[in-house]
């Protein structure tokens, strides 16, 4: 069981706010903490994990929760 520190709900946000808000959020978090991102925009659901990996954070999981709904878990480096 992952200990989720914070949740960022960007469902209903339009392109590219899910990406921009996720990037801003992880900047403010501390090393080792886990961020849960909830997103309903397909392009961002694929792009956020890529961005997080390229920023050096650990991608724990990307899970499809339902129709056009994804949960992304990221551990801050």
């Amino acid at each position, binding site marked *: 069981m992952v200990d989720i520190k914070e949740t960022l709900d960007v469902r209903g946000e339009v392109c590219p706010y899910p990406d921009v808000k996720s990037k801003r959020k992880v900047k403010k978090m501390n090393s080792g903490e886990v961020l849960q991102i909830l997103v309903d925009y397909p392009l961002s659901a694929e792009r956020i994990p890529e*961005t997080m990996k390229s920023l050096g954070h650990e991608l724990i999981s990307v899970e499809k929760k339902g129709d056009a709904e994804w949960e992304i878990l990221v551990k801050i480096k």
Partner: protein
Amino acid sequence: MELELFLLMLIPGLIVGFIFGFILQRGRFCMNSAFRDIILLKEYKLVKGVALAIGVQMIGFSILILAGAVTQNPKPFTVFGNIIGGFVFGIGMVLAAGCASGTTYRVGEGMVGSFVALIGLGLGAYMTKSGILSSTSTALKTTITDGDGNNLTVAGVATPIVMLIIGIVILGVFVYFHLLPALKSRKEAKESILDFSDMKTKIFKKSYPWWVAGTAIGILNCVAWLSSAAAGRNYPLGITSGWLGWLNFSVTADEAALNWLLFMVAGVILGAFIAALISKEFKLRIPKQGKTLLIQFAGGLIMGFGAVTAAGCNIGNLLSGVPMLSVGSIVTSAFIILGCWLMAYLLFMREKE
């Protein structure tokens, strides 16, 4: 209208549009994202897809022209019409959260904000084409043609040959820098080079890699030109004129407003809808904040003005016009990208904290 001509518009238009919408949705192929992400996320996949589509079309279009299947029909160079129209379009697409094609396919995914932006796009285009903005738009245009009065292309009479050469170079770059290294790494990993297993999942459930979407759209646009020409419209894919046509037809009931493109754009929404439904990505989504809807509507209006002033949106000018080496389309495309970058910088890249 004769029934035969109507059916030539209706059925092939819908089919091409359906496939286009399907690929756009599965490939997440939006040019607003493609250009914006170059500076915002340093992400180049989508823009590589756009470049590959243009390369494939340069080869396909030049073969169609040289074989006499279609005649060259580059868009005009109108100097400030292209510069200002393109720049304004680029600004508008960031506000609308999608280019003309991106906005259209997202309607099929159930994004209400894109639906609102699309209404804005049609209205803005209509106001600019035949309404209160038409004098402003016309005043910006000073058409420059070659000596014989033809629309200006980069290479003049040699255009089809130059298109073919540039297309082959682009394809060569793709094969050398992407395809061969990819095949080599598959070989080293002892995977089979062509993997046709599980094609159903790959086509219907998974998103398409940039090079699949780019190649597929490039090939589709060649078929689109043939199909459109057969129905009396000698041009490959476009988007904005299609929505403008629907608005025109619904307001005036004038049959002359109907053409192949109208059914094509309707097909895009249908194709994206079915693609999203199959992959379980369809959901009615409404922006959290009401003001987002207003911004997207304004973005659509602005895109409509830009597209009519530049004689084409990101599809008519950038995807279909650049491969024909139209000077107008190339200038418009450059300014679409600059407008997109300016707005993306202002909205997303200045740190607010």
